[in-house]
């Protein structure tokens, strides 16, 4: 049953960057599971490895970065002789980053929407040229047919006058419209997984609301899974069904979206939640001297990871001689709720 549900399973992924200053362990043993048709939100602050995890999944880690270990199993559905339900398991981590197999996956089975829509597009090519490129490449259809599909896609992302926009250049569109075009491009081959890396961070709040709404309705129509990377907990609450929280290259907590907000366990997750201003409270009980519960200190220097739990130097519940010495294991604190913290270690040992 779970076999059928699982689309991507990342196991102990390690992606390191070899710089002159030292080795940065950007992704240091990430485990996560993306299920078919669902949205997994990945939350964390800058430098926690959330973007590198998603780039690893497409074998797009920029030099001097390298995938050093782990597995990324992609359960690729295949249709043989019309019988659906067969699954090919491909370990993306083992593929050649320049090889034919990963090229077949990129843009076809797994595609990506980036933060800045202008940099995700080629400025000297029309929207249509950029959308049809992947349709022609992956589906082997004629130019005219690809163009029709592209117009259809632009209409699906609620672009007004798609038959005109298709011949526009990216600079002729507003930020929100560009992001719609990028989403159309990403979905043109009906991928089973869409990676969305902060797709609304560069947009205004009302445009953001439109794009989030659009992505939800497209997910309903196409049934793709979404890996939604963001630092905004509000966006996670709206988009995700499952959530992982990352800190310094590791997943520190994993559960469903309700639990992450109502019963967060990891001190870092709790810290993140109490760092954001609570609108309700601010307005119904105005108090000028109210302070936010900030997490003390800052993310450690990536070249010198602390020993033990990477959050120990900032943690309000640190256990001396344990947290700063021994790295905590991932434990299941409740069914389906995983946390990497010594505070909960005894639950499983009992």
């Amino acid at each position, binding site marked *: 049953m779970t076999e059928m549900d699982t689309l991507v399973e990342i196991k102990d992924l390690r992606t390191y960057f070899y710089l002159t200053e030292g080795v940065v362990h950007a992704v240091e043993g990430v485990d996560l599971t993306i299920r078919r048709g669902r949205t997994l939100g990945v939350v964390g*602050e*800058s430098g926690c490895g959330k973007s590198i995890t998603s780039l690893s999944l497409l074998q797009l880690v920029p030099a001097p970065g390298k995938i050093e270990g782990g597995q990324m199993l992609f359960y690729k559905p295949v249709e043989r002789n019309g019988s659906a339900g067969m699954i090919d398991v491909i370990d993306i981590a083992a593929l050649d980053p320049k090889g034919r197999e990963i090229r077949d996956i990129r843009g076809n089975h797994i595609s990506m929407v980036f933060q800045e829509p202008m940099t995700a597009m080629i400025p000297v090519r029309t929207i249509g040229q950029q959308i049809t490129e992947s349709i022609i490449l992956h589906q082997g259809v004629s130019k005219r047919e690809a163009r029709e599909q592209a117009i259809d896609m632009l209409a699906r992302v609620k672009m007004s006058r798609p038959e005109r926009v298709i011949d526009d250049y990216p600079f002729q569109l*507003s930020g*929100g*419209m560009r992001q719609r075009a990028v989403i159309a491009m990403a979905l043109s081959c009906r991928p089973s997984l869409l990676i969305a890396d902060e797709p609304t961070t560069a947009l*205004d*709040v*009302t*445009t*953001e*609301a*439109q794009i*989030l*709404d659009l992505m939800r309705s497209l997910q309903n129509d196409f049934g793709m899974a979404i890996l939604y990377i963001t*630092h*905004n*907990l*509000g*966006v*996670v*609450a*709206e988009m995700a069904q499952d959530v992982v929280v990352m800190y310094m290259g590791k997943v520190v907590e994993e559960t469903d*979206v*309700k639990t*992450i*907000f*109502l019963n967060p366990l990891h001190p870092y997750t709790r*810290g*993140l*939640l*109490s*760092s*954001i*201003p*609570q*609108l*309700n*409270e*601010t*307005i*119904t*009980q*105005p108090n*000028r*001297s*109210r*302070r*936010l*519960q*900030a*997490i003390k200190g*800052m*993310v450690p220097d990536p070249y010198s990871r602390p020993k033990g739990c990477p959050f120990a130097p900032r943690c309000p519940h640190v256990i001396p001689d344990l947290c700063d010495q021994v790295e905590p294991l991932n434990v299941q604190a409740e069914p389906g709720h995983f946390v990497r913290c010594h505070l909960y270690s005894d639950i499983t040992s009992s």
Partner: protein
Amino acid sequence: MPDQASQTHTSAAVSSSTEPLLEVNALKKHFPIQRGFLKRVVGQVKAVDDVSFNVNQGETVGLVGESGCGKTTTGRCIMRAIDPSSGEVWYQDPTLGRVDIAKLDNKEIRLVRRSIRMIFQDPYASLNPRMTLQEIVGAPLRAMGLIRGREIEDRVAEMLTLVGLRPEYMRRYPHAFSGGQRQRIGLARALAPSPKFVVCDEPVSALDVSVQAQILNLLKEMQEKMGLTYLFVAHDLSVVAHISDRVAVMYVGKIVELASTAAIFSTPKHPYTEALMSAIPLPDPRPRDKRVLLTGEVANPANPPSGCYFHPRCKYAKEICTTTAPVLEEVAPAHYVRCHRAKELTLTGAIRPSL
């Protein structure tokens, strides 16, 4: 319940019945659009178009709106970082008395800038990488000739301690610091000449949430310690709600609504404010009901629509909205709205029952 809250909040916000510290009156900033070799002026971008508001001593006024609405330009005109096209900016200067900043000459504006300071959005671009912290934080003191030599060093050390940095860092360069620490340095520089009024232009939007919380706390702490008054320009509505006593909402160069924070967020009276409230991504996993999604795009400030600038996107628009521009009116005590239908509409705020 929200009504009660808004009343208590309003009375707290306007309790200082003395003359406002800053009075902005019909402020305008139009940028010419130039074309061709001769740079012929073919139009005007009305970035700030008739903006008026007051800021009282010791309060924080939030200025919100989407990119391009003129909120940053307003802040810069008040500082005279750019010259306004027209309008008045009356300010109670501790040495000069009540002056119109918009009409001061260069010498006087330098005096005023001792007590009006600014902190910027990008902590990487706003600090000179070739200056040490001592030079950066001490720069305003030297430029103003307030103190010299050893005294500057003492003051820099004092300021760094105040914003939570070690005074030993004084000889280091900005590259050695993280975004949050750099924002602390920017704050130390702004506060070094003991100002009264600080224009904060998106001071936390480049920061991660955990660091953002630290800086917001620091801003509040400094306000209490030094009796500061803030104009807080930002687009993150939860942050603005947290820090502001009153909020002004801008749309295409105009203030469309101005009221106490509680009133803006719980009982908005302008349809644009309602749409903004509805768009805030709330950290609350429960499904939302009836979200107001705006259609269309923000109006072009070089070629705005007729009547109310918001009418093409407004679901409450009527005939009059397409022809006549509404004016900013006081529809409830201290609640100003620029909308023809403000009195008849009942709009939804951002408040939800707690989790």
